[in-house]
């Protein structure tokens, strides 16, 4: 009946240990590890571990949101919808964090916290989309109806967001690395020292997001059970 909660992996402890280990490692080597001396970036390149990884975690949360929305429409199991809602919330948290870390970085390297960059506009649109998703959820009092309508909107929004973040920035000039003629990080910036920190950082933040999401789901379940009794 409850696929996510019964899932052994969600309740296992080993990946939470990996998450903690990766994040401690990231914070330690992220601040004192060796980084290449770059012209404009200087020491701000350390933000790579905290800004880019936020996007990866956000993407993962949106993917979970879309997958569980599809799952809900095929199963009509209300716990699938619960997972979708909580992963949507975590996606909002990570997108806000990614935007703030990005704005701090942009302020020092591009000279302004907000530039007319397709990637920034895409992010703003994504945040608005997920805000609209929660407004829609709160506008419908009936539980089953809410879950169904919100799932439909979430799937539609995910596809549009994917187009806006992944397809359109490729067509315009962007200040971001690897786009609009700028060299990508993996060309020469990201040397092997940085890779050693970057990949664990991605894994760590993604696992942390999943962990927080599963905790929220479990809290909501406990609330439901105590309300019933």
């Amino acid at each position, binding site marked *: 009946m409850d696929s996510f909660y019964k899932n052994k992996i969600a309740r296992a402890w080993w990946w939470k240990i990996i998450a903690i280990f990766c994040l401690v490692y990231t914070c330690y080597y992220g601040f004192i590890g060796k980084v290449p001396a770059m012209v404009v970036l200087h020491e701000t390149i350390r933000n790579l571990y905290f800004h880019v990884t936020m996007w990866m975690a956000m993407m993962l949360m949106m993917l979970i949101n879309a997958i569980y929305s599809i799952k809900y429409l095929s199963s009509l199991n209300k716990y699938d919808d619960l997972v979708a809602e909580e992963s949507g919330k975590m996606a909002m948290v990570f997108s806000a964090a990614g935007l703030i870390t990005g704005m701090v970085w942009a302020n020092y390297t591009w000279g302004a916290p907000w530039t007319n960059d397709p990637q920034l506009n895409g992010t703003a649109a*994504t945040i608005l989309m997920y805000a609209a998703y929660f407004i829609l959820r709160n*506008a419908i009092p009936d539980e089953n109806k809410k879950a169904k309508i919100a799932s439909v909107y979430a799937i539609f929004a995910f596809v549009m967001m994917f187009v806006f973040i992944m397809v359109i920035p490729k067509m315009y000039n962007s200040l971001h690395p690897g786009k609009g003629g700028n060299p990508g990080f993996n060309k020469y910036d990201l040397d092997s020292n940085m890779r050693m920190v970057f990949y664990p950082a991605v894994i760590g933040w993604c696992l942390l997001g999943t962990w927080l999401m599963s905790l929220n789901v479990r809290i909501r379940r406990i609330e439901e059970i105590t309300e019933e009794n």
Partner: protein
Amino acid sequence: MKFTQKVLQLVLLEGKLEWKNKQSVTALFIYSFSSIFVTYLAFQQTIDLTTWNSLFWIILLFASTNAIAKSFLQDSKGLQLFYYSMFSPKQLILAKTLYNQILLIGLSLINFLIFQLVFPIAIYQIGQYLLSLILGAIGLSTVLTLVAGIVSKANNNAALLAILGFPLLFPLLSIIIQCSMNAINGFDWMVNQQLFIVLISLNLITILLSYLLFPYLWRD
């Protein structure tokens, strides 16, 4: 084909209902005329090309939101029951989308003529501009029709349509504005080709998605 016949029947029915109650479609045209006139008074005919294009699309965005808001909200309970018993949800969404596309293509062409009348500018690639206008109207109507379907199931709040619809329209609008700006500046077909391909595929994706997702909304 029975399916296409039913869809066309439904489109005709929508048209007849609209024709019977001319007030709403007249209100729609008056709405866009008066917004164009407000911009005309505000700008006093001094307007550059980028502003012209952006203003045009913003006015069209608001007019189309108003136009499509009524596509589900206006239907009475009895009419909805009739649709429910006579047509499948897939036929219904296709018919509503098709009808709204025709309505919006008409609206955007008339808007374009009036906009040209009050702010006359020279468009170097008129064919490309009209193509982007038609593709933009199709995209706007497809996305907004599905969102109107969502809103009709959620308290029928008209403001919700703008909140839910605008973020979904950002990708479409950013491509459309780029595309039509290129047409105004008279860029060659080769420059715009890629944008048109993206635009057409985006429209196809949205039509496919609303075709697949609408049945879940309609089944209550």
